[in-house]
């Protein structure tokens, strides 16, 4: 856990309000676990003090480059989207537990389900699972064609099914509408997206083995402020901290 000052190599809009930011610096060498996140400072002089948690989407260790995909929505991410190559971004990380891949049976199919801006960490995860030898399938849900991104990149790793709410691309509907045909081969499920989606995925996938990644508004990002708790029945404390105990949890472990 460290603070890194990384230099922007590119920061471009790849879909409506969706930006791909590539950052370089030696600190990237530690960013080996998919599902972990960086706690990104909006800038040194800005009135937006809090860092933004953004998932690691990919790391190129040779180039010492980490990729983040983010939606420029609120003020902080909008300010990030205006930064130019060469500017320095102050990040903490990698933070959180990430997806533990060690215990996963290599012969399984992994079904990676992402909604909206939950999609980015699945890219790095998919690559790592492939390296491990698993078959990887993606279900990616977007609002519309215009909001979709990284489809080709995902297709290079595995079969990729896209759903859009308005039907402008792929299957019309939600990610759960694309799950029926796939649950038969009992895959391991990895899902990242809004809480309501995760809940629906958990229901659909009842009985299956899987992991979800949660999000919550954060203060410290490192477990000290208790901003990002989530109730759980399994742990003695009665809660988990998403930043530190998560953001990844076993399906069914936390109360959504």
């Amino acid at each position, binding site marked *: 856990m460290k603070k890194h000052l990384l230099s922007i190599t590119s920061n471009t809009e790849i879909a409506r309000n969706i930006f791909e930011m590539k950052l370089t610096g030696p600190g990237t060498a530690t960013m080996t676990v998919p599902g972990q996140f960086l706690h990104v400072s909006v800038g040194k002089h800005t009135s937006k003090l809090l860092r933004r948690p953004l998932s690691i989407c990919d790391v190129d260790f040779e180039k010492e480059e980490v990729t983040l995909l983010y939606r420029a929505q609120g003020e902080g991410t909008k300010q990030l989207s205006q930064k130019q190559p060469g500017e320095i971004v102050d990040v903490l990380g990698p933070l959180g537990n990430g997806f533990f891949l060690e215990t996963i049976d290599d012969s399984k199919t992994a079904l990676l389900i992402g909604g909206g801006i939950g999609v980015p960490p699945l890219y790095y995860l998919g690559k790592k699972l492939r390296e491990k030898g698993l078959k990887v399938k993606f279900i990616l849900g977007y609002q519309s064609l215009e909001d979709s991104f990284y489809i080709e990149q995902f297709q290079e790793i595995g079969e990729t099914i896209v759903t859009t709410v308005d039907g402008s691309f792929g299957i019309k509907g939600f990610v759960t509408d694309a799950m029926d045909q796939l649950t038969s081969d009992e895959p391991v499920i990895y899902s990242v997206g809004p809480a309501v989606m995760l809940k629906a995925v958990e229901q659909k996938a009842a009985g299956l083995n899987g992991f979800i990644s949660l999000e919550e*508004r954060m203060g410290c990002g490192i*477990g000290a*402020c208790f901003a990002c708790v989530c*109730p759980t029945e399994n742990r003695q404390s009665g809660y988990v901290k998403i930043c530190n105990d998560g953001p990844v949890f076993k399906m069914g472990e936390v109360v959504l």
Partner: protein
Amino acid sequence: MSRLSVSLPGLNMKNPILPASGCFGFGKEYAKWYDLSLLGGITIKAATLEGRFGNPTPRVAETESGMLNAIGLQNPGVKGIIENELPALEPYNIPILANIAGSTEEEYIEVTRQISASPLVSAVELNISCPNVKEGGIQFGTHYKSAADLTKKVKNVSEKPVYVKLSPNVSNITEMAEAVEEAGADGLSMINTLVGMKLDWRTGNPILANKTGGLSGPAIKPVAIRMIYEVSQKVSLPIIGMGGVSTAEDVLEMMSAGASAVAVGTANFVNPYVCPEIIEKLPELLDEIGVEQISEMTGRSLRQWKTPLSSR
């Protein structure tokens, strides 16, 4: 005596910097980032009698140069803290200030009794100013009779010096400070957060599940400075100053206003290294203004102030 050391009741600090309550957990998370023995001390998160889960999420919201929080005093309860959290801090050998909260007088008293008995606790900080719980907390902090009563009772059972943490959400903070001084407090901590709120303009809904929260960060520093300046003129208790401090310059500003030590809260979230970075910078700034001992800074503004001229 080293150049940065300050001495307050129960708190012999090698420098005047300690993290503020609730912004540093029980220390162990930040221990992964740097050696906590660099700090002047640590204020731990509020302890209540039983463990509490706190408020529903979202618990934080961002505001201009500040943030709102409504954690709601989540903590494992005083026993859990004494058994599981405090021992981890022993190796750092720095003073621990234990923040105490409760819903009733009885709860405050019992928590104080238990935690002040711990040899690892150097002093207690009576949190009568938490704006995020329905009962207790701020209701003691906005009526000076209840504040004084509670202080007296807590003092009676405390084995360690008692700092009373004041709320800025009052018409007259000096009155409050005088009341708790009279009641026997050993020191003051000020300020806690201002009550604030943020709505999502699209929906009209509050961002915080608790609706209102406590405003902290640089946005509130001018209020903190003013209150410390006013109170330090009327009471002779040492003040642990806090509210929006994020640089070494802020520390010297707050000490000049009347603080004897300075707690850093929100700034830890912005930069986890902020406390050691401030501590490292302080001697440089003292050199710049030709001050030898940092303790001389306390109340400097009152001692020597004159109308300043805007100067090039």
